[in-house]
């Protein structure tokens, strides 16, 4: 009779070990075999003179090859769809912890950049890095309950593997291709925005704003100049953002001799719909023009210290 509970304990211990091994195996395989730009960053394989961070307005707007041609500086685009500062802050922090080449760090200010998503975007890209405190803290801000369980409860992380994970496992990541153009993902699309949108206030959270300040300070302390960029928005869409001026002021407060702000929301290209495929996103043609402009503005900063 005494043997039976012992069996149960032994069974549970072996199960625990098995779950741990499976979890570790998946983490390692994902970390080593899936060569997306996130994994490469966490493996300290990405470094450039100009590093671009942000959401889709970074991802589809900044062409590193054009920036390199214009400025002569190497560039890499770490932007990703639907991620606001609170989420990609961990990428910046991790990058700053190892970088050797960075001179300019660009933060593309999406309208909702200082707000918070209800859900983590593409969490599978981060799960194998939860032991990294930057990643854990960033994701914990968005979905605290889930991320806490994923880190501390054995096996829980396995239950979060989703569609994207299986795709990555079976055919490799669909974002492999981003590495061929230094993280940039141009969108060769025509304008497809139909109907009318209602005016709205951009999301904002004071705590996230403080986090942005802290990250900027870390970069500046390392001798890196930070450039906050408001990418172009089609003028019709721009008018819908009710608190845009207030938001710009909040960013402007952060500027100093090492922190610049470049605002393209009132650029002439914002009047031309052929450069956009929706209110907030440039198509390939628009992104090429914009990348040239940002390259020239970086040259101005290099030459004069002003944009």
């Amino acid at each position, binding site marked *: *009779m005494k043997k*039976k*509970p012992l069996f*149960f304990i032994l*069974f549970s211990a*072996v*199960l625990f070990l*098995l*779950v741990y091994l*499976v979890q570790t195996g*998946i983490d390692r395989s994902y970390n080593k075999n899936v060569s997306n730009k996130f994994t490469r960053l966490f493996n300290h394989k990405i470094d450039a003179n100009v590093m671009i961070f942000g959401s889709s307005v970074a991802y589809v707007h900044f062409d590193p090859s054009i920036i390199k041609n214009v400025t002569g500086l190497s560039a890499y685009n770490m932007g990703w769809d639907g991620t606001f500062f609170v989420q990609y802050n961990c990428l910046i922090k991790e990058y700053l912890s190892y970088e050797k080449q960075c001179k300019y760090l660009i933060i593309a200010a999406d309208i909702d950049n200082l707000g918070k998503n209800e859900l983590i975007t593409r969490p599978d890209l981060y799960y194998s890095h939860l032991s990294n405190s930057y990643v854990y803290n960033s994701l914990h801000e968005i979905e605290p309950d889930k991320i806490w*369980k994923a880190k501390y409860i054995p*096996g*829980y992380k*396995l*239950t*979060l*593997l989703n*569609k994207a994970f*299986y*795709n990555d496992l*079976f*055919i490799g990541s669909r974002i492999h291709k981003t590495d061929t153009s230094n993280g940039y993902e141009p969108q060769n699309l025509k304008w497809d925005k139909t109907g009318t949108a209602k005016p709205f206030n951009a999301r904002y959270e004071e705590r996230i704003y403080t986090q942005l300040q802290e990250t900027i300070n870390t970069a500046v302390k390392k001798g890196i100049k930070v450039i906050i960029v408001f990418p172009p928005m089609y003028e019709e869409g721009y008018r819908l953002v009710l608190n845009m001026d207030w938001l710009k002021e909040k960013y402007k407060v952060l500027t100093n001799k090492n922190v610049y702000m470049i605002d393209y929301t009132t650029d002439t290209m914002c009047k031309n719909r052929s450069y956009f495929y929706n209110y907030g996103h440039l198509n390939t043609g628009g992104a090429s023009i914009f990348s040239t402009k940002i390259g020239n503005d970086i040259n101005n900063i290099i030459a004069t210290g002003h944009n």
Partner: protein
Amino acid sequence: MLFNSFQFLLFFPIVTIIYFLLPYKLRWVHLLVASCIFYMAFVPIYILILLATIIIDYIAGIMIENAEGRRRRAFLILSLVANIGVLVIFKYYNFFAININTLADASKAGFSIPLLKILLPIGLSFHTFQAMSYTLEVYRDNQKAERHFGIYALYVMFYPQLVAGPIERPQNLLDQFHAKHDFSYDNCRDGIRLMIWGFFKKIVIADRLAIIVNNVYNDPRHFNGVALTIATLFFAFQVYCDFSGYTDIARGAAKTMGYDLMLNFNRPFASKSVTEIWRRWHISLSTWFFDYLFNPLVASLRKWGRWAIVFGLLFTFFLSGLWHGANWKYIIWGSVYGVALVYEFLTKNFRKKIFSVLPPTVNKTISIFLTFSFFVLASVFFRGKSVKDALYIFAHLFKGWKSVCSVSGIKSVITAIGGNDTVYGSFNVVIGFLLIAFLEIIQFRTKDTSPENIVRNSSSIVKWSYYYFLIIAIFVIGAYDNQEFIYFQF
């Protein structure tokens, strides 16, 4: 609280451990409180409805036992009216009102019945039927009225089977609450085994198949016959694994504390006739309908001869459909079964003669295939979003099969059912078929014993490996997008 939730993962061991730590006299209080917490995790306020019906049925039970003649009958009717009244208000009122309003509109009668803005209390049909079986059994003198209010409340609210059955009978469950259950390692082990098998069926098979099924059935007009057929076949296994998985978890959770809940499923897809399906599928509901509706009805109409049975079957399955949901699609689904059972009843001798010329194995194989096909096709009504959708699916089930003749055709079908994602579609289709094969092999091998016991007589290594496989599969292949149990809505 869902069985497949993190909360339950904490709730279950805590409740079970405390249960055994407490003195025997306090255990019912503990189980009742735990059951209240379990139920209130959904919509807390609805516990008042449950409490009201519990009080009525508790009093009715004692009054029925103490009364005689007409008074006895009156108390039974009072209890039935209270239970059915709750069901009508919360589940059927809006359905009837919408249909009456549609008719009134069409006939320009110039009136409309107001609709109620209320949510359906979770598991309402299950616990009201369980409560009714109590007063009916007391009325029939098959069960003594329960004098202990707490124990009676626990009979209705026992958390493992509160929201989706099995719909217990008082003779089986009430006495168990009075009995002393000492801790038993064997009960614990058997209960946990059953739960693991239930979780595997629910999280790994049902919820993974649901990805394809939901994608296709949410918008069937975007899919050809191949996709519709795969989704329909998958749904048959989804609903089986979903519901029987729930039952296994419920029975397992009860078993760890020493309670035996009734068997609710017994390899229904091995049925050789539609009649047999209902002896193997949702046994607690089908026996409820036969014990309390069909048999008394047929007995009261015995002057009609065999037509009493025909009417009884049609009426019982019409109501069985309505029990599942206040929607025409469920009524049609139930009625289709009613018609099939009538057909089997009326042609029994004829079919026996015809099929007797075939070798028994061929006879059995054909019968199982035809019965299973009927189950799959009937489930189109069950799963379709509406009768219109179901009819569309029937009309298009055999269209577009030419696409399977080419690789590009197969690829486009898989891409479509994978939600415009070929890899994910292929993964889910292949895994889906493999899981179905695994399930069927296990069920075939275990025949009439419980599938979770397939390795009972094997060596420890085989036994452990099997359970490790099931548990790791639950973690890795399981789908965790908050899939509720299908039968919770009833």
